[in-house]
């Protein structure tokens, strides 16, 4: 714990040159689509913060939400009468492989797992993203406005994830969520030890997994120390400006792997950890204490219900499925009440995630299933609470909750109008707005994007 508190001061005391360089690399070129001020009236609004407003209005202007609630609203703007409809924040999927495992899933598109070394914090998912993945358009029709694209789970440390606005562009940079912190994907358990164990390489066991992570963190601590020492030397040299004879300090060699890990230790990069078993999640939390970093979210967490209290106590989100189970040993104890039980403690952060190009299209249905199972088990979860699982809680895990994930004045106008209560198999996203711009309209083909790949396919087939 002592180590943790010392390290947590580091970002305040020193700024690493390497870290500075990273902040500017591969910058976002995203700019919102043109929009006109739009007023949505007579809607049932789930704010994403736990509130439900009936027969309420929402005003968007200049890409931002400017008003949510009841009361006088301006008359001179484009108005959508949403009587009988529901309005929610744009949905956010914290776990997607769109772009890195794009459709069609041919070998040439298999860009999500750099399985040549069990620790590859140096790879960045964004460098694998194919912006023409048709999956982005399907997710949009399901109300997804932001998503984190992660590397796969073949490695212990899979690399950096990136948060995107769900808009089509020619480059991933034009989709990159401005100001969103990076994520780093890590994986527990069976996948890494299988991939490398099958090659008679370390890790082939769970203890091998742990030893390998720990060696990485030790190297990252050393890297921070080296840069800290260097910064001190530079500072000293400046102060003692008269001492010309003193040699110019030699900068440590830049290391892409350690740069990412150092970013985690400094709290600038958020850890998203694929982990199924309860005991393993607890071991990982001990490791985070050992090295003074934070696990932002456990992903998949099929056994998260066994440690729901601990997750809440440690302020760790659980990004979960409604009902997947049984595909491997560590997924054998899956139950349909997992999300509801993780949601139960005070201070919890339950998230519905997809990890699937199909699931991302209907996160609302996954949440509805979890709500239903919770209710049957005595946890009555109203829609205004459940919507947090796929909006504000997800935004929190991505470090973007001050910008999106809820409907409040000043937030990005990422908004979905549903044709009915979204917690239903029959609900469909009618209109989707990103930064106040209409980017999807179910009733208007002019507002339905088509990727380059799909354009012109199956000529002559009447659809």
């Amino acid at each position, binding site marked *: 714990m002592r180590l943790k508190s010392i390290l947590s001061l580091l970002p305040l005391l020193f700024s690493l040159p390497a870290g500075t360089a990273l902040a500017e690399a591969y910058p976002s070129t995203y700019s919102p689509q043109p929009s006109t001020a739009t007023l949505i009236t007579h809607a049932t609004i789930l704010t994403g913060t736990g509130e439900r407003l009936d027969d309420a209005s929402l005003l968007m202007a200049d890409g931002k939400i400017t008003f949510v609630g009841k009361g006088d609203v301006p008359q001179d703007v484009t108005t959508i009468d949403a009587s009988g409809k529901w309005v929610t924040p744009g949905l956010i999927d914290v776990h997607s492989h769109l772009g890195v495992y794009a459709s*069609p899933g041919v070998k040439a598109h298999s860009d999500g797992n750099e399985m040549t070394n069990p620790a590859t914090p140096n790879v960045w998912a964004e460098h694998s993203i194919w912006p023409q993945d048709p999956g982005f358009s399907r997710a949009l029709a399901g109300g997804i406005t932001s998503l984190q694209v992660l590397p796969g789970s073949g490695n212990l440390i899979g690399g950096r994830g990136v948060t995107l606005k769900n808009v089509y562009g020619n480059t991933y940079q034009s989709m990159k969520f401005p100001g969103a912190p990076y994520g780093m994907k890590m994986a527990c358990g069976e996948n890494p030890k299988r991939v490398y164990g099958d090659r008679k390489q370390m890790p082939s066991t769970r203890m091998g997994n742990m030893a390998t992570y720990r060696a990485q963190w030790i190297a990252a601590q050393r890297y921070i120390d080296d840069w800290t020492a260097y910064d001190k030397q530079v500072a000293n040299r400046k102060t003692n400006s008269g001492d010309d004879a003193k040699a110019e300090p030699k900068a440590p060699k830049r290391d892409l792997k350690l740069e990412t890990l150092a970013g985690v230790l400094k709290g600038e990069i958020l850890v998203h950890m694929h982990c199924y078993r309860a005991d393993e999640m607890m071991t990982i939390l001990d490791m985070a204490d050992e090295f003074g970093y934070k696990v932002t979210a456990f992903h998949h967490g099929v056994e998260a219900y066994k440690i729901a209290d601990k997750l809440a106590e440690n302020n760790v989100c659980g990004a979960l499925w409604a009902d997947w189970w049984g595909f491997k040993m560590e997924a054998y104890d899956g139950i*349909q009440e997992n999300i509801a039980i993780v949601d139960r403690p005070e201070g919890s952060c339950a998230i519905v995630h997809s990890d699937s190009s199909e699931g991302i299209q209907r996160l609302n249905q996954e949440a509805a299933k979890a709500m239903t199972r919770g209710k049957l088990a005595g946890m009555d979860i109203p829609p205004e609470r459940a919507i947090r699982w796929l909006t504000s809680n997800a935004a929190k895990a991505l470090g973007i909750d001050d910008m999106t994930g809820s409907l409040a004045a000043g937030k990005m106008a990422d908004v979905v109008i549903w044709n009915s209560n979204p917690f239903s198999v029959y609900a469909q996203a009618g209109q989707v707005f990103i930064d106040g711009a209409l980017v999807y309209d179910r009733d208007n083909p002019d507002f339905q994007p088509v990727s380059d790949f799909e354009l012109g396919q199956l000529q002559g087939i009447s659809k």
Partner: protein
Amino acid sequence: MKALKTLLIASLTLFTLAAQAQTIMIRGATVHTMGKAGTLENTDVFITAGKIQKVGQNLPVPQDVLVFNADGKPLTPGFFAGITAIGITEVSAVQGTNDSSLGLQEMRPEFNVTLAYNPNTSLIPVTRMEGFTFTLLGAGSKGSLFGGQGRMVEFNGGYSSFIGSTVLFINVGQDASSLSGSSRAGQWMLLNQAMLEADKLPAAGETRLLTRAGRSTLSGYVKHPMKTIFNVDRASDILQVLRFAKSHGLSPVISGGAEAWMVAKELADANVPVVLNPLANLPGNFDTLGSRLDNAALLDAAGVTIAFSGAGSHNARKQRQMAGNAVSYGLPHEAGIAALTSNPAHIFGSAIDQGTIRRGKSANLVLWSGDPLEVTSVAERVIINGKLIPMESRQTKLRDRYLPQNPAMPRAYIKP
């Protein structure tokens, strides 16, 4: 602890009911018969000796009958779990528990997965308590065009609860196998040769694809109503299946069928059913460029008989949600239920056992809390072969072990 105790009592009660209940009256249900009688409001169903004895309004209630008041809730036939490995898998990644696929790199249509069936799998309680009463065991073979044979099975826990006839699986399309020269044309060349071998023993010394057992198996499907299921997606390949099946006297079913809507008329004219996943809407490969969410609706409108599959074995319960989405994209609601009940039962020759609610039939019924295709509804009562099944599984027991907060003893002592 109090909550736990209540749960324990509830599950004990159900268990007792399951063991004893042989005579059941369901009163006042909205009965989706999935037959000519259509949907009957406020209707009673009387079950005894494993059969549906009466369906009607205001039936007299005999003594010592277990009565459930449905209060207008939907009663449907038990649902079809799809083409799965339920009973021939336990954990997908644990090789020793998986028996649905033959590893030999040979053409072995005689491979029959029913020999591996284990009714004691944890997947059956998990699946049936969600309203699913039967599945079709699928067969696959690595590298071969012939997947092997499967058969329908009921989730009543019996060791040989098979219904209907065996079916044969054949794989064609982009997964051009290592044993087909990696070409679709090679697939048809070899399939034709196999059919000729089944018809007439090759001369001594001539290249053979099949064993004696394989020839015998294959010839059994010729000019016989037993179905041959072709796993195929691309429209042009589906048309090849229709030609091939016709020329060799096979009775085909299309499984997958992502582009089936493009040849819906041909399928309807040939009276060939399609088993599909209604959620498939991405071009997962170049055979499925035409994937779309209204595939089911378009096929149904064209008169093609459809059934649903594709949720896998462990999460087969997702079939309901899949059907609900098909309805959301234009399939009539009743057709959505049919694709999970009467249609699969009819397609695979087990209509006598499953798929409809009718007097004299085996009682496979589900009473739902609401619309059976809605994700917020659940199965409240499930009856298989006239017996109420316990509404519990390994998963509900894990739930009940972990629901209590701060138990005094380690949870290993909580045994719901």
